[in-house]
């Protein structure tokens, strides 16, 4: 899916003065940010801060109430663009009656993978998330961590140039989490732009850049070290409190 012309023009993600309201409740307030090509951008914030809503706007599943979202230079929501985006939802959206292989095959077909390519990609991604030996098992027998890994594998199937991961490593053991992070770095080095959400501070440290989000507002953006430095704090947690106005 690489090499679409539009994508070469303005790679990455741009969010410009975005508001999102559900009825009268304002969930996102004037968010402006940019995710540059090839970086791993982390959205850090507590639950309920608006991370998932922002991510859905970028993934084209919702429309902002105000403002604009661009992915690879294309105004979202855009149906064709969805072929270039890999999305992993916060809750594992899998068909529990079906086997892992059947789930993979189904989602692969939806993004246009068929025949030998599909087979090869399924092999590759399942190797990556360490599920190759469990493909014939129905999802109902999977543990939470296994489902998380399968969701990630599905998001990677079509080699998307933009990867959007909503809380990707919840319930995954440290060893596997490390190997997933290694793979995310590989992907970003080979040209994938990654946007992920997290509320785990040590995971946030691993991102190229971070956006701190609280009550629907982006309170700080920068590399983890920059953020700590300018807040004059030892940890990201402290920095978050400083930017959030809780601690001076």
């Amino acid at each position, binding site marked *: 899916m690489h090499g679409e012309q539009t994508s070469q023009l303005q790679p990455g993600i741009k969010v410009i003065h975005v508001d999102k309201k559900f009825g009268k409740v304002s969930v996102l307030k004037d968010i402006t940010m940019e995710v540059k090509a090839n970086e791993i951008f982390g959205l850090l914030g507590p639950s309920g801060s608006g991370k998932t809503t922002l991510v859905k706007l970028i993934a*084209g*599943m*919702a429309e902002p109430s105000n403002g604009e979202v661009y992915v690879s230079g294309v105004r979202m*929501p855009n149906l*064709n663009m969805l072929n270039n985006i890999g*999305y992993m939802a916060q809750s594992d*959206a899998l068909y529990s*009656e079906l086997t892992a292989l*059947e789930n993979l095959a*189904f989602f692969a077909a939806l993004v246009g993978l068929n025949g030998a390519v599909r087979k090869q990609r399924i092999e590759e991604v399942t190797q990556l998330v360490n599920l190759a030996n469990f493909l014939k098992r129905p999802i109902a027998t999977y543990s939470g961590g296994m489902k998380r890994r399968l969701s990630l594998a599905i998001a990677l199937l079509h080699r998307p140039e933009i990867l959007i991961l909503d809380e990707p490593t919840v319930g995954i053991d440290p060893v596997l989490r490390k190997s997933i992070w290694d793979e995310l770095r590989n992907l970003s080095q080979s040209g994938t732009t990654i946007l992920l959400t997290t509320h785990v501070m040590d995971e946030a440290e691993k991102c190229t850049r971070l956006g701190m989000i609280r009550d629907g507002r982006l309170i700080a953006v920068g590399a983890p070290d920059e953020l700590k430095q300018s807040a004059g704090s030892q940890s990201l947690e402290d920095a978050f409190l400083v930017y959030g106005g809780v601690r001076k």
Partner: protein
Amino acid sequence: MRVRSLILRIVRQFFRDKRTLALMILAPLLILWLVALIFNGNTYHPKIGAVDIPRQIVTRLVNQGAVVESYSSNAAALNALSLQKLDAAISFADGVPHITLEGSNPSKSKTVLLLAQKVLLQPANPMPSQMQPPVIRYLYGSANMSSFDNFGPVLIGVFAFFFVFLIAGIAFLKERTTGTLERLMATPLRRWEMVAGYVVGYGIFTMIQACLIAWFSVGVLGMMMNGQFLYLLLVTLLLSMTALTLGTLLSAFANSEFQMMQFIPIVIVPQIFFSGLFSVDNMAPWMRRLSEIMPLYYGADALRNVMIRGKGFLAIWPDLCVLLAMSLVFMALNVFALRKYRKI
């Protein structure tokens, strides 16, 4: 292509869920069979207590199909009546027959009265010998048509509609509650493709169900069938299609399986009342017109035309058109309702 993989997935899922498959395919057959057992039985033989009535009348009562028991006194007969051992007690006072009915079941009471009229009035009002008995002809149906034959076609429609509505509705709802629908909307799958996939995927099972119900009703239960089997199939299938599209549409307005069940008294039960199972002729005219928005009304009308009246395509095509149009409208609305998950 995407629709095809969606259909394949639905079929696979359905085969994994054997119980739901059985519910959709076998439950309508079971219920139809039970209904046939109840209504196809032989005519009812009323139990009559005779208190001191002429022997010839007793003989005639028995000949008409009554079970007659003699009682020595009125009190004894009334006692048996109150214990529900009898449906009626007949006695004579001053040459006038007195009939006391148990009376809690109107159809039993009617049977008794009809029978008593035949037996007791005949000698007093003998037919003039020159008058011939009338020649009776049936435009549709026949003398030995049972009530099951009459409402059987409606029942075929009701059960096909009910089970498809519920199962398709809950399946689509599950797609919402498990988050897979939202996940699908993050793929290039178009909203109409989603709806089309469900209509065809569940349509396959709907078709199997329609075939089985039609075959079972006619072939096994021996329901009256004067028309073409093909038309019966066509009507059942189109009616199920309406149920399928309506069920998936309404699942947008339910947040749980429990709430989906709440549509049964709102969507299903009124349709049964208006489907022709019960006569609505006594209803206020404006209320009667409510049936015009109910898919089951059109389905049942077409089914009766085919099965009882033996009519062909010319008689049922308006009904079929309405069902088809309703399905299309429900599908279009569903495509629109999916905007909740993705605007484009």
